[in-house]
């Protein structure tokens, strides 16, 4: 990479200016020296207005396209365990993967705020490129805009993704059946807690790292071993509680979680205890919730635990007949209570 660039418009000492989004020479230099180089693939290198994808190559993977889009606006841009770039890749990869699709192509649209350090942009593009490499996807088309200082939060990224769903794979929230088990692939709330700490206004010292990771490898393994998985979703904003609610509502069933089975890291629990928050509502960026028939649940957990993204997989709940759309928790004390969704953002309690 041209990290030694002496050109003021792309040098690491420089800042993003409005010229970088104006469509002229400066913008072209930026895109070529940072994005094209980082993402390094033939479709992008053509610098046409669109990526051109080979139909036969796509069709070889399955019989349906999966297509998704997501925008990333995280503050701070870099945090323990990742940055906005890794999020933008893994988030969209995971949105594709939970349909059972093999993720193939991403787009990358950048909205940069005037004044962003070019060194930072280069760092984030490099980690996007690394994340895409790990996930086995190509970033094949993109766009760059610059907004005046104060009109953006450093940078925003939108990624859209295309994947292909293999024949016969049918995952749907509506398929949850009474008796099914609810499984997660690891600890809850790591990303939400890491971001809360990285914002620096908690004045807490804790070892908190985002769980940002791609899930398609784990999911492919899960589907290979147990094709009868009923429902699968990644638990991002809204946390595992949000996904479980979606499952209960879409299937017209009830779901009961077991409080004593919920995997939460001690450091994340500490944050929750101090602030009066619940890890079930915290965001994750590398966690999935699967609903599988009871008879397949134990072998599914065993298979997941063999995969690096599923080391702490466990059963956290079960699907019940009804009442439709309700989510309950059996508490440590032996009672049962409702698990409610927060109204808006979770607000820390004062006492």
């Amino acid at each position, binding site marked *: 990479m041209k990290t030694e660039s002496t050109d003021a418009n792309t040098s690491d000492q420089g800042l993003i200016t409005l010229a970088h989004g104006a469509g002229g020479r400066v913008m072209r230099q930026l895109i070529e020296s940072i994005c094209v180089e980082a993402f390094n693939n033939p479709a992008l290198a053509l610098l046409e207005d669109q990526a051109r994808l080979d139909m036969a190559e796509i069709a070889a993977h399955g019989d349906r396209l999966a297509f998704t889009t997501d925008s990333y606006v995280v503050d701070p841009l870099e945090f323990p365990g990742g940055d906005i770039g890794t999020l933008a890749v893994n988030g969209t990869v995971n949105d594709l993967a939970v349909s059972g699709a093999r993720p193939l192509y991403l787009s990358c649209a950048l909205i940069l705020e005037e004044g962003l350090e070019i060194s930072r942009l280069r760092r984030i593009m490099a980690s996007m490129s690394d994340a895409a490499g790990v996930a086995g996807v190509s970033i094949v088309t993109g766009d760059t805009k610059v907004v005046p200082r104060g009109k953006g939060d450093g940078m925003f990224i939108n990624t859209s993704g295309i994947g292909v769903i293999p024949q016969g794979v049918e995952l749907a929230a509506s398929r949850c059946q009474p008796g099914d088990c609810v499984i997660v692939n690891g600890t809850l709330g790591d990303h939400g807690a890491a971001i809360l700490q990285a914002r620096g*206004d*908690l*004045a807490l010292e804790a070892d908190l790292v985002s769980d940002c990771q791609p899930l398609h490898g784990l999911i492919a393994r899960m589907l290979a071993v147990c094709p009868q998985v009923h429902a699968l979703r990644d638990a991002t904003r809204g946390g595992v509680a949000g996904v479980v609610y979606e499952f209960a509502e879409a299937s017209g069933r009830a779901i009961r979680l077991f409080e004593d089975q919920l995997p939460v890291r*001690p450091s994340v*629990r*500490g944050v929750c*205890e101090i602030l*009066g928050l619940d890890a079930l509502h915290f965001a994750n960026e590398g966690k999935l919730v699967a609903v599988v028939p009871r008879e397949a649940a134990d072998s599914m957990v065993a298979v997941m635990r063999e995969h690096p993204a599923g080391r702490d997989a466990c059963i956290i709940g079960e699907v019940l007949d009804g*009442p439709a759309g*309700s989510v*309950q928790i059996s*508490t*440590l*004390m*032996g*009672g*049962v*209570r*409702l698990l*409610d969704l927060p*109204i*808006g953002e979770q*607000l*820390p*309690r*004062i*006492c």
Partner: protein
Amino acid sequence: MKFVDEFRDPALAKQLLTRIAQRMASPVLQARAPIRIMEVCGGHTHSIFRYGLEALLPQTLELIHGPGCPVCVLPREHVDDCLAIAAQPDVIFTTFGDAMRVPGSRQTLQQARAGGADIRMVYSPLDALQIARENPQRRVVFFGLGFETTMPATALTVQQAVGKQVDNFFLLCHHITIVPTLKALLDDEDVCVDAFIGPGHVSMVIGLEPYGFIAEQYRKPFIISGFEPLDILQSILMLLDQLVEGRAEVGNQYSRVVHEQGNIQAQQAVAEVFELRERSAWRGLGEIDQSGVRLRTRYAALDAEREFALRSTRVDDPAECRCGEVLKGQLQPQQCPLFGSGCTPAQPMGALMVSSEGACAACFQYQRNDSQ
């Protein structure tokens, strides 16, 4: 997790519940049943619902969810004051997160922030002071809210602001104090409470002595309690023991945190900075004598009430709201005709639906299926 898991041990909880049931079966208590215990503090209310404790207790033992949630009892006109201050273009208004969603007569602070007001959530009043030092050209107002739990931090911040000559920092003081309100409840003929689960964090600051009159004059057992399920169950057992033996004493279950004298340094800071108001308004309960504090005259320069010449007019809850009856234990949350229909946590009408520590909000959040 240390100091947490020990107090959530299901096997120990079962033992305590068995002993509670034994006490309740004693002839003395059977003759008095139902036994009504008020938990004063909103933190206890939240734990009781979160761990589903009510369902595990004997049916002849009723828990009454008391007035100890400072956010719930915050009158609407005070939120209007906050909004009026936050609307000044040169003001940065800082507050604990809890207050963001409390409705004033027209708006919440959250809505005002969306409308362009510079309103920032802080975790400590010292953060607000720091914001003031970083923004010398702006007036930075901290909304002081809560009981004696949060009062000392506000007092220390006020002392620091003066000591460090930060002259753009102001305090809008709505700190309130729980003891006069307990007295008002005890004097109310509608309130029948046999014993009290006393507040933990407030007592950490004020100690045991201020509650003495409850045992001596009103003959009600009073146990200061921690917030974990075992704390609460043990406190209930300690209260029942007193009732069985005909005693009325102030006891301390939460001795790992609360000392008999409280925190003397904190008390001194509070006394140096604040003085009692003649009376203060509590949402759902009305005006109660000497139940709130204001800045002493020597700190008048920091007083946001003076700086912004506030003239709020009293805004009553809608007449259908029956929060007062719920607070006094005359009505269960689900028995209020507005519960879950006209009044929900997303659109609270009455005080007790406002914060997650309010009896109605906790009930709605954790139990509403039972009522449907």
